[in-house]
């Protein structure tokens, strides 16, 4: 696993951070909203990659937790009238943790193909509830009127730029936490499980426990992303926990690269920006995304990030020779 550590690699981390901080001052209004969306999807995709890239569990139902987070926040604000931003976000995160504990309990017994289909089916269950339980979720109309309560210090996040900075804070915090987890012994055990679960068991690891915890952590951060998205959109709908959303986030991980920590973030940026650009010319952005995925799978199986790392490796060797 490529380690973008501190120390001599600090420009890799520092420069993008500076760019991200400066961005809203120089970019257009629309671009700020776009980048906010990218950051939210980056949280979403990086959380999925804890399961997919690190543990080797291909989940097609990750949007279920995105949906739980979004709906929890939406219901509390729009229907419950609770205008405390932090309370609602914490509630959303807790709700996703609970739901992922429940769904994970059933899913983690399986792996590979069966896991893919089971997570998919269970997420559809959540979607079905969102669609049918009109009194709670508004059915296929969803919940609108999700305003953005003040997060404190009298800073209104109705202002898109302020909201962007808040999301940036969550993005940085999430990636920091997840990075720590990935580099920890726990994170390495997950990778071991991905490589050979039988080997890990033969070393004495209770692999079920590790997979379960990874699943819950991943689901919890997905819930955070969902809550933030609900704030941004101002509404929640059954599209949040739908299979289309699960597919989208999986696409982001695959295109960006699952074996590199920042791969999903890159994938989120590429997929979302391509979608936005292409959809301004034509409605057929799905076609473009599908082609990108197939090309990535066939020629850059480690994703764009993986490809870049390979190129960097080749350049280093070439420089060393001369």
């Amino acid at each position: 696993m490529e380690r973008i550590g501190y120390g001599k690699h600090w420009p890799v981390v520092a420069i993008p951070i500076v760019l991200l901080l400066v961005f809203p001052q120089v970019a257009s209004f629309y671009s700020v909203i776009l980048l906010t969306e990218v950051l939210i999807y980056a949280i979403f995709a990086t959380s999925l990659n804890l399961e997919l890239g690190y543990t080797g569990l291909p989940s097609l139902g990750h949007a279920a937790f995105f949906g739980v987070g979004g709906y929890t926040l939406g219901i509390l604000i729009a229907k419950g009238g609770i205008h405390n931003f932090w309370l609602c976000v914490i509630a959303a995160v807790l709700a996703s943790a609970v739901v992922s504990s429940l769904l994970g309990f059933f899913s983690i017994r399986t792996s590979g193909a069966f896991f893919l289909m089971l997570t998919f089916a269970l997420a559809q269950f959540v979607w079905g509830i969102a669609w049918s339980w009109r009194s709670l979720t508004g059915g296929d109309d969803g919940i609108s009127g999700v305003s953005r309560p003040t997060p404190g210090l009298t800073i209104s996040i109705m202002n898109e730029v302020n909201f962007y900075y808040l999301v940036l804070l969550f993005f940085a915090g999430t990636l920091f936490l997840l990075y720590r987890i990935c580099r920890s012994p726990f994170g390495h055990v997950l990778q071991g499980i991905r490589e050979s679960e039988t080997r890990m068991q033969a070393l004495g690891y209770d692999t079920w426990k590790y997979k379960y915890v990874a699943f819950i952590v991943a689901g919890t951060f997905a819930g955070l992303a969902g809550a933030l998205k609900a704030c941004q959109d101002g509404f929640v709908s059954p599209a949040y926990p739908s299979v289309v959303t699960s597919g989208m986030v999986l696409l982001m991980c695959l295109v960006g690269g699952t074996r590199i920590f920042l791969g999903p973030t890159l994938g989120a940026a590429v997929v979302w920006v391509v979608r936005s650009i292409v959809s301004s010319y034509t409605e057929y952005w799905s076609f473009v995304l599908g082609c990108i995925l197939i090309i990535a799978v066939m020629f850059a199986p480690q994703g764009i990030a993986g490809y870049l790392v390979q190129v960097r490796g080749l350049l280093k060797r070439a420089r060393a020779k001369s």
Partner: protein
Amino acid sequence: MFDLGSLLNLAMSGITFGMILFLLAAGFELMFGVMRIINMAHGSFFMLGAYLGISIARQTHNFLFGILMGAVSVGIVGLVTERFLFRRLPLHLQQVYVTFGIIYILADISKWAWGSNPYVLSTPALLAGSVTILAKPFPIYRLVLLGVGLLTALGLWLFQEKTRVGSIVRAGVDDREMVGVIGINIKLLSTLVFTGGALLAGFAGIMASPIIPVLPGIDWDVMTLAMVVVVVGGLGSLRGALVGGLLIGLADTFGKFLLPQVGIVLIFLVLAVVLIIRPSGIFGGG
């Protein structure tokens, strides 16, 4: 509301829907059983078969030809996919991701070619009416579907049990490595199975189109149903496809009738119950 006639009518509807699900799941099971591939694009194949079949039927004013071409053309798509895309990829997971990309590609091709309005295949006058069973009307076409479904099930069973190719397929499901070791051309087998599975999906799509209108988004809906049927019935089992299909078909039909608010969720409840009692599905290998 609960007289025998209505109940039978509902049951028949559920069974015919189950037949469509069976046709759909059968192809999926074959692909998984022999090639260990989750064909994510299976719902897309269903949709494409419906669209193409309807267009051809309308152009040629020939119902049967439309049905034939609906199935065959999707079979060809499957063939091309397997031959040119899968062959180059060593890992199953990579092949699954390719089918995932195909979903997005076919979705837009369909939207471009056929737009957003629902398409329905018009049945010839002969099949368009209904018969009266226990004083309730029952569409003839649904009976036709039932018959076709049963015939296909029988045909597949005969193919697996009685023909040489079929027994190879069955062996491939049981033990992939052995089949390669005995010297059977695994590449040819894979191509055959994927093409056949795609053909079945397209067939399901066009056969269903008189009663299930095809429109954008149906690819994901159908994919969901296929996965539920396969998980319930058991991965890799044709019997599972039939029993799972019927079970889900009946659950869905009765569910929507008895508890319309809960409607869609009911099949997932069935799924959950089956998974708790028997995690590998009814006929699954465990």
